[in-house]
């Protein structure tokens, strides 16, 4: 196993990408149930309103934000000759993602704790 910041970013990119696909499937499962009537929709919506799913929403936010900023980082590398700043760009994407996850995750967490 050859460890490096590039490898960490690659693994995170793959992991968050697969997580987002799984989320989309779950999202369609819930939203698509509207065709089955209000009872079915409300029942499925209730299953994703539990505290565990609130925590999962924070993880979802982290995945979305990291995947987006990692994509922006890669576009910068593709279009500009900036490979010498590869580590700084990775850390920047990671730190911005972490800050936005905290900023967006705290209200979700507080809302979940309030019940």
């Amino acid at each position: 196993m050859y460890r490096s910041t590039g490898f960490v970013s690659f693994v995170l990119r793959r992991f968050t990408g697969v997580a987002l696909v799984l989320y989309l499937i779950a999202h369609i499962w819930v939203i698509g149930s509207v065709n089955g009537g209000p009872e079915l929709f409300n029942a499925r919506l209730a299953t994703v309103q539990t505290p565990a799913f609130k925590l999962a929403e924070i993880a979802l936010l982290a995945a979305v934000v990291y995947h987006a900023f990692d994509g922006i980082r890669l576009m910068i590398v593709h279009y500009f000759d900036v490979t010498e700043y590869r580590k700084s760009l990775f850390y920047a994407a990671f730190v911005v993602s972490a800050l936005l996850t905290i900023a967006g995750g705290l209200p979700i967490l507080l809302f979940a704790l309030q019940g």
Partner: protein
Amino acid sequence: MEPPNGSNTEAIVRIQRFNPDTDAKAHVQEFHVPRVQGTTLLDALHWIKHERDGSLTFRRSCRHAICGSCAMNVNGRNILVCKTPLEDQLDRKGRVTIRPLPYLPIIKDLVVDRSTFWKEYVRVKPWLVPPQTTPAKEFRLSPEEVAAVHNAETCIMCGACYSACQVVALNKAYIGPHALLKSFLRVLDPRDTIPGERLADVGTDEGVFRCHTIFNCIDACPKSLNPTQAIETLRKLAQKRAAFEAARVERQRTIADPIPVPAQSGSEGER
């Protein structure tokens, strides 16, 4: 059990061993090596082979970081052991760990099978294809054209980048950073007559578009080359292949002509 520490006079060199005739899987063996100023990792391996275990197997040749034979994985990084001082790689406990290049089949101890490395290299036609009619005297390249390929020219084919690449590890059909760097060298060489064919060969999902921009090739290169940037350049050129090919044909019409000297500017030119 806590492994033993080295001392001021001895380093502990931990080497991954594997003998296909007797071992089911690789294991790490420790050797105590004298810490002498100026000792390189290759010197340490030679000392072990001569003084402790003659069966230790590794590749080496020039000892001057130019043949590319002695690339190994030291403390998790791919480096040339011939140019790396032992002292620089010792941890606080006086230990260093040497393994064969990762992601490649091990033949014995520190020797790996580089068949796929060379197969992919040949795949990009690494040789120059000059015009059928060569100039009577010489090809004339501008300093800018030489500077553009200088980075790629100094590759020593050690395999450090290839075996550090996780895309190679996951997909053996991937051409690999070493061969793509060589393709970059030929594509940008104004003397080469088949840049379009080359770009068609590497502009595929087994070539430049398979790279996941992990940057391990840059981190691993003992010559501080930049295969990732070469791949990025090839990606851009592959998307405007026809225009690039036409520009090359035009350039070769004047390749034997003297390079125009830039006009002097400012006060210097007024003297």
